[in-house]
């Protein structure tokens, strides 16, 4: 799934960032890397941007950008005991 489909207030882990060098570097510099845990804080209506929280700072990502961030649910937070 991508960040676009992640549920509200869901914690997810970044698996891959697709898209060009510009987008990847830009997300990197804002603290979003592969392996980071992200929380979806808010979603704007009418297919507006997603607001995510990472390491205490908040970043707004347009839907087009959110679609380029592939994520998986954060296993350590889903209630399952960590191995």
């Amino acid at each position: 799934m991508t960040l676009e489909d992640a549920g509200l207030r869901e914690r997810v882990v970044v698996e891959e960032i697709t898209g060009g060098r510009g987008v990847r570097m830009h997300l990197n510099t804002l603290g979003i890397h592969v392996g980071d845990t992200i929380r979806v804080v808010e979603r704007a209506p009418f297919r507006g941007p997603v607001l995510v929280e990472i390491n205490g700072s908040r970043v707004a990502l347009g839907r087009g950008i959110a679609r380029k961030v592939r994520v998986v649910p954060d296993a350590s937070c889903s209630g399952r005991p960590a191995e």
Partner: protein
Amino acid sequence: MRLVLAGQPNSGKSTIFNAVAGYRSATANFPGSSVAYTISRTMILGREVQIVDLPGIYSLTTTDAAENQALSYLLDEEPEVIVNVVDATRLGRSLELTLQLLELGRPVVVALNMMDEALRKGIEIDPEILAAELGVPVVPTVARRGQGLKRLFREALRAAMTESVPAPKRLDREIERAVERIVELLPPEPAVYPVPRRFLALKVLERDPGITHAIERVSPGFVERVRPILEALEEAHGWNVPEVLSGHRHAVAHSIEDRASTMHHARLGWRERVDRLLLHPLTGGPVMLAILGVFFYTVFGAGKFVEEPLVAFFDQLSVAILGAFPPGSFIGTVLNGLVLGVSGGIAIVLPYLLPFLLGLAILEDTGYLPRMAYILDNLMHRIGLHGKSVLPMVLGYGCTVPAIMATRILESARDRRLTSALTVFVPCSARSTIIYGLVAAYMGPWWALGIYFLNIGVIVVLGTLLSRRMEGRSPGLILEIPDLRLPSMKTMAAKTWLNLKEFIVIAWPLLIASSVVLGILEWAHADHTINAVLSPFTVFVLGLPAAVGVTLVFGVLRKELSLVMLVQAMGTTALATVMTAVQMMTFTLFVLFYVPCVATVAALARELGWRDTAWITGLTVVVATVVAVVGRLALTLAGIG
């Protein structure tokens, strides 16, 4: 000695800059296409220091034009000391930039800023541990209250004087090996830039196009020679090299953060609750409209309250002066022009300009503007842009010149062109004073509000049409949303004063001089010639009194002039007696859209070149005429005025 303030956006660099340089000191923009970084000379601890406030950068990897400018300053200028301003509430991420600054081979001092906000968020940082980890002095500061700044500059001067260059942090072993191999392949000294060879090698690994090309020019075949090194690294990690590097810096930065800070329970407060309301899918939009509505009414109310008695006073003065000299005498006409110029500034422009600038400063300082960008993102997509373009466009309500410069925060050249073209149509504070002073004052606030909405409508239509003609697509919104902050009175006042000074020092003298010139033209009856030449357009097409011709010509210098000189050209401040409502509306609509002032044209030419400037300027005349004529016909048919 040159001291550079470098740090991520919103870390408080400008607050530190203003605390030492003072808003009062003349700030200068660099010529050419460089970003508006500000420099100032000041005395610190008895030494003359040149302080440079660089634009905010997230890293030394360039993703937008502002970062490019900051990087080229750091590469070319060899500052004596770099003060790295770090946001303590975002320590890990900020340290990623710090690690890169340590590579530059210049003395570095870290200002650990916003310590108060970090504490509120439950983050406790030990500056000693951080200093030991980074190998540079770390000074905790709260720049907004001036705390720690004295010590910061003392440390910075000491670092500069002792030339204590920090050792860069070592990265992963394979990266270090690749760096060593690239360093060997670099052209012999002197290298392309006055920076350590290790730094250049890292930039090559990051595939920085600018630096790689610069090296290739000096040493042809370089790109081919380093290709196997990059490929080998890629093979080993399975990612592309820039991300490998970024990922490692990320890891190093966060492990330093872990060692230097402890997390306590955060105290949630009003900020979080207000923010929920501002950004909530259901309340965000309505709250935004409410905020802008309150803004509009406050400016209008405050302006009108002050304007009326002032205008009455200057009217009497003007009558007295004209009465004291024989009618048609040269001195009388010139003196009257002088009084009208002075009074136009004080009585008509300032009452609206001051509350307007103050309101805009509040929007800027609370951090509401990026929230508007978030809310309006999908609307902006409809006109082929994304949310970030909202920032320059809203700034355009203040003054078009800085707004056009602010388009540099946009990533793609296409977005910068399109946003600049549209920003020109946003009514700046000068044009707003005409909307307030003419339409709102004589026809009522609802008409004025209607003009703002009409203006937004025209911008949306233009954006839709223009974006279809421009190739490429907007890259999409990536924008940090900073914490909400209560604006401090001191900053507000200083910022408003800085903007107001621009009006007082540049616009007002121009206003007075132009009024005098118009007085002389009237005395020599030359205004009739200009008006007669323009009358086919002004009278026939727009249906305005012939006397407005001159005011439109002067309006190209400064838009406020059109209003002030309208009063002079019509010979009365009681405009309602000489102009119909339709005429006022047509005049305002035309002035709102036609040719931006000369300062804007110059800014456009600097940012986009003369070709774009020419078509944008041409477009404004066409749009102004169409809107004014349509407005005139619609109002006449509706039977108004």
